[in-house]
């Protein structure tokens, strides 16, 4: 099964967005719209930086609460690159395609606040690369 993956963003875990975003803007010469989304499903706060319109973005990810799945990452590995995100036409087909390539499910599909309710799912490749799949269109 083959399915095109469109590179959307990379996720970078930080302990706090407010304390780190200005540094990223400065270092990358990036644009920041000031929007911070809190997602109760994912238990994170996220914001996006753009270096050039149309290019993949940088997502800063902050744990929201003691049961946030990224809090463990932060404790184990500290601030750092966390995942890559690809857009797919159909989430279930995208997950199935990745499974045929040896990936396993890390979190099943859920709507994401930062993407206006479009669904995301998480996969872990055999190389232990965490991949977020983002469905292109929101499901009615």
């Amino acid at each position, binding site marked *: 099964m083959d399915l095109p993956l469109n590179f959307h963003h990379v996720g970078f875990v930080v302990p706090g967005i407010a304390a780190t975003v200005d540094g990223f803007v400065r270092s990358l010469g990036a644009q920041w719209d000031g929007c911070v989304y809190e997602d109760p499903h994912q238990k994170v706060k996220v914001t996006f930086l753009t270096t050039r319109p149309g290019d993949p973005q940088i997502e800063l990810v902050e744990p929201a609460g003691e049961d946030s799945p990224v809090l*463990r990452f932060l404790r*184990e590995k500290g601030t750092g690159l966390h995942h890559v995100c690809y857009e797919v036409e159909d989430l279930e087909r995208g997950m199935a395609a990745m499974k045929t390539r040896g990936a396993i499910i890390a979190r099943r599909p859920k709507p994401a606040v930062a993407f206006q309710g479009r669904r995301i799912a998480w996969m872990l490749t055999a190389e232990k690369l965490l991949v977020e799949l983002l469905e292109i269109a929101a499901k009615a």
Partner: protein
Amino acid sequence: MDPIATRLSNCFQTVFPNLPEREIPAARQSSVAAWDSTAAIMLVNVIEDEFGIQVDFDRLAELDSFESICQYLKEGQAAGGADGSAA
């Protein structure tokens, strides 16, 4: 060990091959160095395959020991899960 615990122990052996079998019943995330966030995801996938269930990933944080996972599986079975537990 009861049948569920035995099957769960096999799952642990798959994910943590260096963990001595006798230490598995007492295994906890805090005491098994190899039990990091990646291993936790792998363990859930192996358990799902073994028991034919879907584990609720939102409960990963509380499934932090052999004992708590075993209890989760038994509760699922008691609630009518097909072969152990269900999300």
